[in-house]
């Protein structure tokens, strides 16, 4: 086959004395798609950030090793270097300007321009943007990704899926693109969107672009990659052609054991009491509007809410918890909740794990201890030691540390200590911290939204088990929103499907996948 487009040799990286990558070798050929897999915190994003010259790398002491492109050693000190060399990246977290339109983001810092007399004197940066040309280029890039994105829509009001496709369109529109890094591009997508995404990735590769594809959905890896590289604790443990390996073997290489994924059996001892009754709910959440939805949640059950992206399933918890404007009636334990005031639900022991972990879920610059204990301290006055009656109260640090360490154990959060800052964790581990934060509240009722987004296969089972255990031990009612019907079936008692902002139907989790699928596409209005 052709020569190597890219070679990374003996790459090493440590953060504050902890080595997270040991002696990594990775090579890429023209038109090749290499799948990069590994547990949460294995070092996938770190490796790719090195390749893209990300600021986190240079500001934490750089890296060791050599990077070659087309046989020549190159130096990548910043993202501009990477861009100049033809390396593009779609980050694990969105890298878009929220107040810009799709077009402006796709052509960001590569805008077609028109010179004018001022710019002739004062330099290129005073050239005016050629809006017409920008639109043309953006439109043709959007056509190529195969999803209808409004080129004039602001990113801030786009549904998540469209944001992801906007990033892909940005990369596609680059003429000099030689290497494309995709860090979990499908994590936020529904299955249907994901398959569209995979198609456009394949067509990019067929044009000769070398692609690194990171995903926790292993069947996607098998579907589109030519080769798979497994990283475990900062070492490459397997580098194999795709036809010589199976999902089971990849899983075993990643975590060293096998994982089981069966639908849950119907529980017999379910109560029929209604704990929360939602009536005529409207939620104004961009891309996830809820329109006149009614739903009853039974005491002690795990209720799944599924549906395609953009149909409104995410709007339900966000509206009830007061994060987006909502109207309608929510009765919890025979009392009405004021749905536009978050404290109204928080103070009734209703907790929420948001799908937007960076936006509302985590205080990125704070320690894990603080992240996990903070809300509980605030809402429930726990973790406080009182002096002189209740005159002076201060934080009970040892108790906080205990609780945090417990969750680090239980959810297998990969970190150096409970004092580490949240932003220093890998994406999947941040997700686990969000869960721990909700558990620490001791909620009577728990909304979890996309709890396994960006979590590896092993940890996924762990998280789902943790939810199930929590529900069984404490009798906490759980409402879990997820785009993956498979994972809903593993732990839920019943699953409701949302379509066009309303409940399309509710079945027991043991029903066939096909029946749920039919509800999602509206073939079987209930």
């Amino acid at each position: 086959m052709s020569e190597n487009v890219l070679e990374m040799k003996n790459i090493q990286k440590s953060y504050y004395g902890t080595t997270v990558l040991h002696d990594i070798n990775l090579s890429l050929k023209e038109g090749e798609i290499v799948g990069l897999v590994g547990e949460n915190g294995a070092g996938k994003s770190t490796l790719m950030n090195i390749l893209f010259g990300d600021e986190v790398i240079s500001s934490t002491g750089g890296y060791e090793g050599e990077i070659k492109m087309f046989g020549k050693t190159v130096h990548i000190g910043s993202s501009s270097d990477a861009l100049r060399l033809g390396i593009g990246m779609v980050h694990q977290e969105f890298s878009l300007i929220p107040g810009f339109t799709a077009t402006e983001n796709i052509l960001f810092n590569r805008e077609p321009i028109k010179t004018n007399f001022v710019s002739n004197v004062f330099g290129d940066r005073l050239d005016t943007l050629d809006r017409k040309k920008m639109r043309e280029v953006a439109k043709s890039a959007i056509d190529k990704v195969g999803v209808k994105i409004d080129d004039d829509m602001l990113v801030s009001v786009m549904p998540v899926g469209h944001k992801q496709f906007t990033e892909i369109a940005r990369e596609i529109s680059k003429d000099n693109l030689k290497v494309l890094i995709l860090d979990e591009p499908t994590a936020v997508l529904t299955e249907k969107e994901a398959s569209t995404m995979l198609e456009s990735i394949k067509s990019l590769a067929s044009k000769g672009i070398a692609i690194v594809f990171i995903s926790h959905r292993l069947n996607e890896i098998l579907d589109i990659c030519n080769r798979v590289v497994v990283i475990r604790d900062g070492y490459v443990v397997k580098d194999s052609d795709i036809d010589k390996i199976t999902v089971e073997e990849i899983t075993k290489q990643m975590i060293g054991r096998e994982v089981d994924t069966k639908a849950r059996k119907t529980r017999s001892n379910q109560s029929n009491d209604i704990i929360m009754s939602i009536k005529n709910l409207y939620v104004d959440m961009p891309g996830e509007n809820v329109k006149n939805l009614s739903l009853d949640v039974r005491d002690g059950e795990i209720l799944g809410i599924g549906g395609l992206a953009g149909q409104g399933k995410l709007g339900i918890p966000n509206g009830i918890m007061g994060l987006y404007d909502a109207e309608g009636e929510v009765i919890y334990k025979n009392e009405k909740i004021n749905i536009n005031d978050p404290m109204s639900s928080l103070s009734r022991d209703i907790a929420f794990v948001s799908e937007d972990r960076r936006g509302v879920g985590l205080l990125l610059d704070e320690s894990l201890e603080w992240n996990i204990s903070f809300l509980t301290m605030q809402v429930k006055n726990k973790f406080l030691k009182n002096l002189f009656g209740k005159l002076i109260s201060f934080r009970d640090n040892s108790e906080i540390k205990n609780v945090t360490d417990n969750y680090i154990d239980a959810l297998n959060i990969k970190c150096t200590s409970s004092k580490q800052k949240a932003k220093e964790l890998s994406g999947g581990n941040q997700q686990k911290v969000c869960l721990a934060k909700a558990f620490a509240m001791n909620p009577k009722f728990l909304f979890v939204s996309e709890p396994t987004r960006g979590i590896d296969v092993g940890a996924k089972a762990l998280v789902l088990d943790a939810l199930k255990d929590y529900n069984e031990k404490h009798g906490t009612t759980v409402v879990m929103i997820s785009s993956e019907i498979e994972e809903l079936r593993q732990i839920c008692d019943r699953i409701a499907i949302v379509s066009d902002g309303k409940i399309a139907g509710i079945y027991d989790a043991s029903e066939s996948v096909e029946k749920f699928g039919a509800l999602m596409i509206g073939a079987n209005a209930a």
Partner: protein
Amino acid sequence: MKFDLKKFLADRSVPIMFIIICSVCIPLSGFSTGYLLNEIVTRIVRNTFLILSLLIPIMAGMGLNFGMTLGAMAGEIALIFTSDWQIWGIPGVVLAMILSIPISILLGTLCGTLLNKSKGREMITSYIISFFINGIYQLVVLYMMGPIIPIIHEAIKLPRGYGIRNTVSLLNLRQSIDNLISINVFGVKIPVLSFVIIILLCLFIVWFTKTKLGQDMRAVGQNMEVARAAGINVERTRVLSIVMSTVLAGFGMILYLQNMGNIATYSSHSQIGMFCIAALLVGGASVDKASIGNVFLGVILFHLMFIVAPKAGTVITGDSMIGEYFRVFISYGVITLALVMYEAKKHKKKKMAEGSDDEK
């Protein structure tokens, strides 16, 4: 949805409040319409250019920037030179503008560089920097002008032989731009050339937002990390926005002073930043969003109020001092209010999720 009207009003609460105050005070003050219109036109001519200079840093995400005070000082220094060299009239104004450019660029670069070291706290940092540079300005004007920097005419020097007097007269330059082409519409004097200059600046700002640099500034203002990942030199872009603002503020100060007709050497610039920022906020701007419309609405409302409120205050209380007291009190009040409202909005989302108002 149904809350839209409430939100619409809430977002514009500051201008609405001022409209109410003005509409109560105008009849109380008893001023004639002709008088009020003349006064308003004067204030627009005097202040608009200066306030417009605040727009570019806001676009670049650097907030309400007291760095403009530095530009004002540059403009004053330039005018001191031209009046010492006795270059009057329009040539004097133009020369002063040209002279102010290098000084503004120097000060703007310094300020921008310092602000890059204190990202997220630009407003307070620039406020402190303006005090610091004011010290240097005084050193230069009070001690160095004369012995080190040659000043020819005794008339502008202090009696002791060095340093500049408290007031430098610009009588021979006074309103030379305003009066060059001026027409009279129903008894209201309209300085056409001054308006043309202001409109040109507005057009420039609109044009600027369409340039590559303008686009980069907007991007940097929204998310520095993303901009950096796209290969934009974030630090340099931010410095450029401050430099542009200081240069424009320098021009603005020169236009302001030619209208006034004299330089209060040690105090002209000292509160100009605060009054401009307050006017912009009264026009409905916020820390991260401001438009040309906000500038004009702000100048009109803010100054209309200062014309009518003291008189109205005198009518009600019989005390004429109330006016000046009002001016300072209201300015600080408006700025405080706008900042508090901005912070509250910024943390609203956060607060909802965390049940507190802790920082991100």
